[in-house]
């Protein structure tokens, strides 16, 4: 088990100093990057969105029969990215896995920011976003309530519940660390963290109830996360469209979400550890374990893809055959499909070899590749099904407009901006859990 203990050469005091320093010591590079992210968010996302709201959905590539395009691709992609942070953190907490401790806080933040990004895409996709409150249950003069038999309504509740629970999980687990920050900072920071820490003092009673409640949160989060992406898959699978109406979609989406989310964590951790000089906390062991997880998820995801193709082939209906041929063998979709297979099925096989799992450059290339592939997967699901329904006279190719491409780029800037703000405003590594990893000091000179 010696290998499992990742931080045993650190001291308690060092952990407090190092983590608070990540928040208080800021270089020029940070401001430049933040400035780029904010500009990208405003320029690539907000400006085209305002233009779209002003001129209407006509400036997008959405038209009959392609009512769902790149915006919903992004929605599913970002919801997928959100799936590993909180879910992985909860599973690793329950299984008492030590290597979770250095990485879970920022992974949970990743969950919140990506759910937020995904949720905003619903508004971008709406023609009239100011009518969003129609999705909320409230008595109204129209005498019309929500139709709970629509999977879109399941989505509203599932995503709201997931976002609320993820925020509670993130904040709740941070309370002792916010108190540690409160004790080390001065000025406006002191006042802010005094409020955020809620008056935490680290008494035996506070720790006792924190641990009990945290365990319940972890238990609640796991089935919730699984349900959220299952429900997202039913937005598509409960339709009668060839290429969408598949019973395997729920597990396919959940596996895909965990896969892309885990790849997102690897990419983010590599950048995060380098930028904040956290090599002592986020070690090669973390990447070894995460890449092993990617390998397992890759095999599962590939298996489901094979099953999807074979069941369609076995059904041998003209609609199924047409969808498969269109997706796998027709340009330009075939290029995307086989690129996806390369990045998501072939490249992760490198992780069979331990040396590659501990090579940060290989991990970076493969993890970015996986998320490129996972974005393509969602794009293909939408753009090769709705434009190719049963009757050929309905067939129509979907081409995303410049506004849609711009908003897509803007979403990455938005996510980056939120994460950059997070690392300066929140203890991004769990102070008390890293200390647990170091060990509890006993007078017999042993750490337990």
């Amino acid at each position: 088990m010696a290998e499992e203990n990742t931080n045993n050469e650190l001291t308690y005091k060092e952990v407090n100093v190092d983590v608070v320093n990540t928040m208080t010591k800021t270089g020029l590079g940070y401001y430049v990057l933040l400035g780029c992210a904010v500009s990208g968010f405003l320029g690539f996302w907000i400006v085209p969105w305002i233009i779209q709201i002003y001129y209407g959905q006509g400036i997008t590539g959405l038209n009959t029969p392609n009512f769902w395009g790149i915006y919903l691709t992004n929605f599913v992609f970002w919801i997928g990215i959100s799936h590993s942070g909180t879910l992985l953190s909860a599973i690793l907490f329950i299984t008492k896995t030590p290597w979770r401790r250095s990485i879970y806080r920022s992974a949970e933040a990743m969950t919140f920011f990506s759910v937020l990004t995904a949720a905003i895409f619903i508004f971008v996709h709406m023609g009239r976003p100011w009518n969003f409150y129609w999705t909320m249950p409230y008595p109204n003069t129209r005498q019309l309530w929500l139709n709970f038999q629509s999977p879109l309504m399941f989505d509203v509740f599932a995503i709201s519940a997931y976002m609320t629970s993820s925020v509670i999980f993130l904040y709740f687990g941070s309370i002792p660390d916010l108190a540690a920050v409160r004790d080390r900072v001065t000025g406006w920071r002191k006042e802010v963290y005094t409020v955020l820490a809620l008056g935490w003092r680290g008494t035996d009673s506070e720790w006792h109830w924190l641990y009990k409640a945290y365990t319940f949160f972890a238990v609640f989060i796991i089935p919730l996360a699984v349900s959220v992406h299952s429900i997202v898959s039913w937005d598509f699978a409960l339709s009668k469209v060839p290429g969408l109406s598949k019973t395997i979609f729920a597990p396919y989406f959940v596996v895909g979400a965990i896969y892309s989310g885990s790849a997102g964590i690897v990419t983010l951790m590599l950048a995060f550890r380098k930028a904040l000089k956290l090599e002592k906390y986020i070690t090669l062991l973390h990447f070894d374990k995460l890449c092993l997880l990617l390998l397992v998820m890759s095999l599962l995801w590939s298996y489901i893809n094979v099953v999807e193709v074979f069941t369609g082939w076995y059904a041998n209906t003209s609609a199924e055959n047409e969808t498969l041929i269109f997706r796998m063998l027709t340009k330009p979709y075939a290029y995307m499909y086989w690129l996806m297979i390369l990045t998501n099925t072939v490249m992760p096989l490198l992780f069979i070899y331990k040396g590659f799992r501990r090579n940060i450059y290989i991990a970076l290339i493969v993890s970015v590749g996986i998320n490129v592939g996972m974005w393509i997967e969602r794009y293909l699901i939408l753009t090769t099904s709705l434009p190719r329904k049963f009757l050929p006279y309905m067939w129509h190719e979907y081409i995303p407009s410049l506004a849609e491409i711009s908003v897509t780029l803007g979403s990455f800037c938005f996510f980056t901006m939120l994460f950059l703000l997070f690392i300066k405003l929140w203890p991004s590594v769990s102070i008390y859990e890293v200390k647990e990893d170091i060990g509890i000091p006993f007078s017999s000179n042993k750490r337990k």
Partner: protein
Amino acid sequence: MDRTVIGLFQYVDNMLDAAHRLKNAGYKITMFSPVPIGHEIEESLGERPNYIKWFALAGCLAGTGFGVLLTLGTAAMYVLPRGGRPLFSVTPTLLMAYETTILFGVILTLLGFLLFTRLPSWKTKPYVEAVNIDSFGLMVDNIGKNKRAEVEGIMKEFGATEVVNKLD
């Protein structure tokens, strides 16, 4: 005037031994630590109750009720015929109830935590910052002046590196 004494310890077992002695002597003790030591405390001073589970259960039951009522109640109050399909459909009701069960469970668990820890509380309370860094703290409060020396003595006997006095 009553006083509060906080002893700081470098090692957790020293603090637990001192806590054991002071508890047996009839003092009301509070322990501070920079890491969760629930397991060590329970080994030394006995198991503690877990009432949070009842909050979680109550939240889940309330959430299930809310989800079922919302879905079926909506269908009953605002009838929306859909080509002969049932007005009260089982699948969406279960799905909605599933989501609200978890959501309410999370919210009530949080409320339970806040209730038992009495947080948030921004009033000034006896506290030493070192217990959030690398020391273990043992606090005895409401002790008269004549008992202070005894408490301090016990703490030092068990290896307290520092004893801090605070007025209540």
